[in-house]
């Protein structure tokens, strides 16, 4: 069953355009110039119940705008959306009982109070009885390992600790779906991993669907089975994470170490040398042009091998390639020129 259905979604904002300097400011006062910015254009996708779906893209791609339309906070300019059977902007309050959300850059916990106070407040807001509130707090504090943090004022928590409390708070009312907008932003590697592990566990234990936006491809790789990549408000890719890697993992990188020094100007046919040392070499090649076997044969005959490492490009690189391809396409360039400017 579809948890989210989005068809031909559009969202256009009106942004004031002002030239630099005092003259520009005065002109903007007298004759304001408005620019129509298409944050989301013709977006269509589905998400299944209990799915872990990654929604990624660079800054200004339209990710957060889409999330806010899905929660009912923003009204779209056009298109149809159904979230758990509700039209978000028309049935925002009914939908709110069924979904949770975390906007990573903004706190929802009360800043001067301990997190436990916000938990109890949210329990009341979601109309849970006292016994259920206590049970949920007990369950979530254990799952998120936040027992020791609950009674500390939120302002005194580290970002990682706060984010664990934020995500736990969004799950208090046992939502069927959570929308996480950059939940790992600003976190260190350990804190990121803890958040990812707990989100994954909550998905497994409670079958809560997770729509996750992130700049960090690592979040998607660790959590999601399917990914949607957006850029300039449009979907430029959607498929399984494994398919994404397969389609775009067309190059390999090889690190080799030898027992003896390598001859000067050592070359491998069909590969680009990234770094060469006396006892080792790092190279990259395109598997569609040069077979792996051909490269390894050349390397093996060059001397006595001590160590060989073959690696794929990171997901970040894969996504960068997709962005670049999308940006370079003629359709994209035409779309960029469509930004309408009008005088009001």
């Amino acid at each position, binding site marked *: 069953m579809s948890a989210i259905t989005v068809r031909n979604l559009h969202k256009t*904002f009106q942004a004031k355009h002002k030239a630099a300097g005092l003259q520009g400011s005065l002109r903007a006062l007298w004759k304001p110039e408005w620019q129509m910015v298409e944050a989301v254009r013709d977006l269509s996708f589905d998400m299944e119940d209990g799915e872990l779906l990654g929604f990624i893209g660079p*800054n*200004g791609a339209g*990710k*957060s*705008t889409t999330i*806010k339309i899905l*929660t*009912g*906070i*923003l*009204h779209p300019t056009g298109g149809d959306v159904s979230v758990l059977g509700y039209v978000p*902007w028309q049935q*925002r*309050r*009914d939908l*709110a*009982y069924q*979904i949770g*959300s975390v*906007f990573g*850059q*903004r*706190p*929802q916990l*009360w800043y*001067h*109070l301990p997190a436990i*106070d*916000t938990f*109890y*407040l*949210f329990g*009341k*807001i*979601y*109309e849970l009885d006292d016994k259920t509130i206590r049970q949920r707090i007990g369950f979530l504090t254990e799952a998120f390992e936040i027992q020791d943090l609950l009674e500390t*004022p939120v302002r005194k928590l580290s970002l990682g600790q706060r984010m664990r409390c934020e995500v736990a708070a969004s799950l208090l009312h046992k939502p069927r779906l959570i929308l996480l*907008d950059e939940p790992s932003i600003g976190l260190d590697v350990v804190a990121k991993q803890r958040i990812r592990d707990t989100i994954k566990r909550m998905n497994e234990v409670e079958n809560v669907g997770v729509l996750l936006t992130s700049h960090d491809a690592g979040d998607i790789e660790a959590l999601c089975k399917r990914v949607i990549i957006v850029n300039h408000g449009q979907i430029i890719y959607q498929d399984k994470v494994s398919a994404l890697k397969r389609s775009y993992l067309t190059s390999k990188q090889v690190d080799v170490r030898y027992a003896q020094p390598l001859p000067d100007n050592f070359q491998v046919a069909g590969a680009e040398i990234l770094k060469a040392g006396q006892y080792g070499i790092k190279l990259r090649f395109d598997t569609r042009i040069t077979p792996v076997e051909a490269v390894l044969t050349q390397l093996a005959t060059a001397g006595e091998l001590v160590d060989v490492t073959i690696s794929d490009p990171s997901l970040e690189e894969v996504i960068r390639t997709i962005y670049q391809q999308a940006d370079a396409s003629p359709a994209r360039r035409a779309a960029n020129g469509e930004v309408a400017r009008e005088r009001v």
Partner: protein
Amino acid sequence: MSKYWAVFKTQLLNNFAYAGDLAAGSVMIVLFLWIFAQLWKVTYSAVGTERIAGLSRQDTLWYLMLAEVIVLSKPRLARTIAQQVRDGSVAYLLNKPYHFLLYQCSVGLGDSVLRIVTNTLMGGAVVWLLVGPPPNPQGWPLVFVTVVLAWLLDFCITAMIGLAAFITEEVRAFEWIYQKILFILGGLLIPLDFYPSWLQTIAKATPFAYTLYGPARLFVEPSLLRFGEVVLGQVVWLAILAGLLTFFYQRGVTRLAINGG
């Protein structure tokens, strides 16, 4: 309603984190009332009568005490909503299962209650010391009702100013204008009875007079007739302003653009 009660209680708790702010507010009311006391002492001696427009110096000071308590205990609602729109945190307030305006009303009440208590105690103490005891305590329950309605009237106006942030983002200019209107037409600086009759007629018809002048005047001269007049005016204005507020909210929320993605 239990969710709004919980919001009110949480905001009340939150206010204990701002004990310094509460103390500063109390110092302000003491300072203002001391200045008013000196000003009206000179004015009454210059005029050379016991009463001006039916009010003694003692009445005038107790009137100003209540008007100042209402103004200085107002929640910083407009500024808070504008800040929430600017930094994007309004997103969290709109995606919860409550009515946004009732939520803001509960937060505002939680914000005001402690300040009303401390300002009344400090302001009352200073005026008592300077001009003598407060007016007839039998009228206090009636005054309490009108203060609650006055608070709601002010809530509707400041919430509308706050909602302007959905479109303009910045509301300080509107807030400033409203504050000055309260000074003049609300009767915060001078009881409206001291104005020329044409200006009294205009001022007393506005919602601003029902926010300050109505309750403060009832405080110094309580009567069931005056109470009835004030409450009737407050209820009529409340119906109009609450209707307008709901209309602006429904319009504003469809036009909302949230900053920072």
